[in-house]
């Protein structure tokens, strides 16, 4: 199978126009001839304007030469054509073997489990193997790493069908790129997840959660409207103090400077200034009231709908309270467990998203040229072109048997 390593070189084929023009122009050009008996001549125009090609053999040789040069620039290479092989269906952990067989109809395919060594997937008849496979399906596995290994090891002609759970975990930072033709089939389910390894103290400190013994600082800034929300804030402070949490409050008008981080900020001042957003991105946790954010994860809800949404900004978090922080504006505030629920939201460790919808991380198709070594066709083609050039010179300089016509 011939393939071109630099297909842009074929653009040189545009030069094919040149010899055609040369041969046509030479044809239409009138030759000047000194002719003593001119007085007996009458002017006769060409019988008809007809494009005629001078020396078609030479033109064909020159066209072949130029076309060959264009192909030479495109770096042709020969690659052994691999014979087609049976397609593979690979089932990721988190998907039951029988569910995968029901989702994909591939009677000729080889079925494998995505795991170390890619063990074959049992069918419904073998109960013991099914039980072993179910254990394997419950184990977390680095999906991207395994798929890359499969992509590298499998013959290039094998068509892949990847059955994955809709919620994929254990991904890595790089988007999956496969050289094989792969069909991505998400089915219902989610990847098994490793148990969390415990919060990171560095992240907690950045967000203002103080180590045991030190008081947490909360800065409250309010404007004219926000002043009416202060009672709830004080009530929250009293409730949290009753729970034994040490908090240093800093309540001031919105034009007062904010304390240096780390500190939580309750912004009751309406629109969020850019300085506060920058502080959030640097890792602070900010609660803003009267901000109906449309996006963000719902972290607190009431029967009437979402009341608190969390937006991740940089390394920090912007918590948006939809309504005014007043008892008459939100029913959620009067619930007896509200301070505890809000505390648990505020103090919850920030989680890195551990899973992603399978459809959004479908592998990208790339062209891989390292499947089989390609043998360069440039030297034989160059030799052939040199021979063709010699022939062209021979034809071009051959003594012409009849006068130029």
């Amino acid at each position: 199978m011939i393939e071109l390593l630099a297909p842009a070189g074929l653009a040189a084929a545009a030069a094919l126009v040149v010899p055609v023009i040369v041969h046509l122009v030479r044809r239409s050009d009138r030759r000047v001839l000194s002719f003593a008996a001119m007085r007996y001549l009458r002017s006769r125009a060409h019988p008809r304007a007809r494009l005629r090609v001078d020396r078609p053999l030479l033109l064909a040789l020159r066209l072949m030469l130029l076309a060959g040069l264009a192909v030479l620039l495109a770096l042709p290479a020969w690659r052994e054509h691999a014979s087609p092989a049976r397609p593979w269906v690979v089932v990721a952990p988190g998907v039951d073997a029988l569910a995968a067989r029901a989702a994909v109809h591939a009677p000729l395919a080889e079925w494998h489990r995505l795991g170390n060594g890619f063990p074959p997937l049992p069918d419904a008849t073998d109960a013991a193997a099914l039980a072993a496979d179910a254990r394997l399906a419950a184990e977390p596995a680095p999906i991207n790493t395994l798929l890359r290994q499969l992509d590298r090891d499998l013959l290039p002609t094998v068509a892949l069908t990847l059955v994955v759970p809709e919620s994929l975990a254990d991904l890595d930072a790089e988007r999956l790129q496969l050289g094989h033709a792969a069909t991505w089939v998400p089915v219902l389910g989610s990847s098994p997840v490793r148990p969390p390894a415990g919060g990171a103290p560095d992240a907690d400190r950045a967000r203002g959660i103080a180590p045991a013994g030190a008081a947490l600082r909360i800065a409250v800034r309010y404007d004219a409207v926000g002043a009416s929300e202060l009672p709830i804030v004080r009530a929250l402070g009293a409730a949290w103090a009753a729970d034994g949490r040490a908090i240093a409050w800093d309540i001031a008008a919105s034009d007062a400077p904010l304390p240096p981080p780390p500190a939580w900020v309750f912004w009751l001042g309406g629109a969020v200034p850019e300085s506060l957003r920058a502080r959030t991105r640097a890792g602070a946790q900010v609660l803003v009231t009267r901000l109906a954010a449309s996006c963000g994860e719902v972290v607190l809800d009431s029967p009437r709908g979402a009341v608190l949404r969390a937006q991740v900004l940089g390394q920090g978090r912007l918590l948006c309270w939809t309504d005014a922080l007043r008892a008459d504006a939100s029913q959620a505030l009067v619930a007896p467990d509200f301070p505890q629920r809000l505390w648990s939201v505020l103090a919850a460790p920030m989680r890195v998203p551990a899973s992603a919808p399978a459809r959004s991380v479908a592998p990208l198709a790339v062209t891989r040229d390292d499947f089989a070594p390609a043998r360069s066709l440039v030297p034989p083609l160059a030799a052939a072109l040199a021979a063709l050039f010699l022939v062209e010179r021979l034809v071009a300089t051959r003594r012409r048997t009849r006068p130029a016509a």
Partner: protein
Amino acid sequence: MPCVLIPDDLRTRLRGLRFASRHPALRQGLGQHQGRSRGAGLEFEQYRAYEPGDEPRRVDWKLYARSDRFFVREAARDSPLSVWVLLDASASMAQADAARPAYSKFAAAKLLAACLAEVATLQGDSCGIASLSSKGVAVAPSGSGARHRDRLWLALEPMRTQGEWPIEAQLAPLWERILPETVVVIISDGLDAALPAFAARLAAARRQVLSLGLISCEERDFPFVGGYVFVDPETGAECRSDGAAARAEFLARFTAARTALARELARCGIRHVDHCLDEAPDVPLRRLLARA
């Protein structure tokens, strides 16, 4: 001196050629042609009555014994002939065939002139050569003998084509040199309109005029195909034409013009022979010098 102008085989074929004058030659001296001068000689011409002053040895004494009168025996003297070769050196004579670019009409004319000088020299006649062009008339004076023939060949060498057919005044020196009773061979391409009148004037004054018309192969065959711009070498006029389309009409008109030229010259008693450049040079000479 080795002959560079005439190839050896051509020179061999020239030996059979002879100038024959229709007019008795006037020149004094011994030659190979029938002369008008009478007197002592080999071939008997006539008897005439003795006149005082005749040499006594020319009296035919045997006849005196029979008739008792003095008669003087006279013989016709063979006289030498004078030959002039006139070359048309107008620019149109530079025409050559693409197949043989070095052999132009003028080169052929030089070769023919050299041949004629050779023929004249072989039979002891005097020969002169002149090239005629509007840029000047070059004359190699008449003379006889092998050395003069070599001088003529040398004089041929620098002659070049230029300009057009000369006007009347430029031809004046020729009238002084080309005496009556001479043989004049005009070698031209026959394309100049003034040529027939000039030849007729020469012929009218008791000169035997022969005309050699040179035709190139391209004029005879017109092998051109495709678009051409034909340029007249003398006037510079241009004619754009397609070779194949113009061929039939050109050949018809050209042939008609050559026929008309030959007929007009024949009316003045001038023998005209056409010569194509691909023929051997002795062929037209043989036809030209053939005895009528």
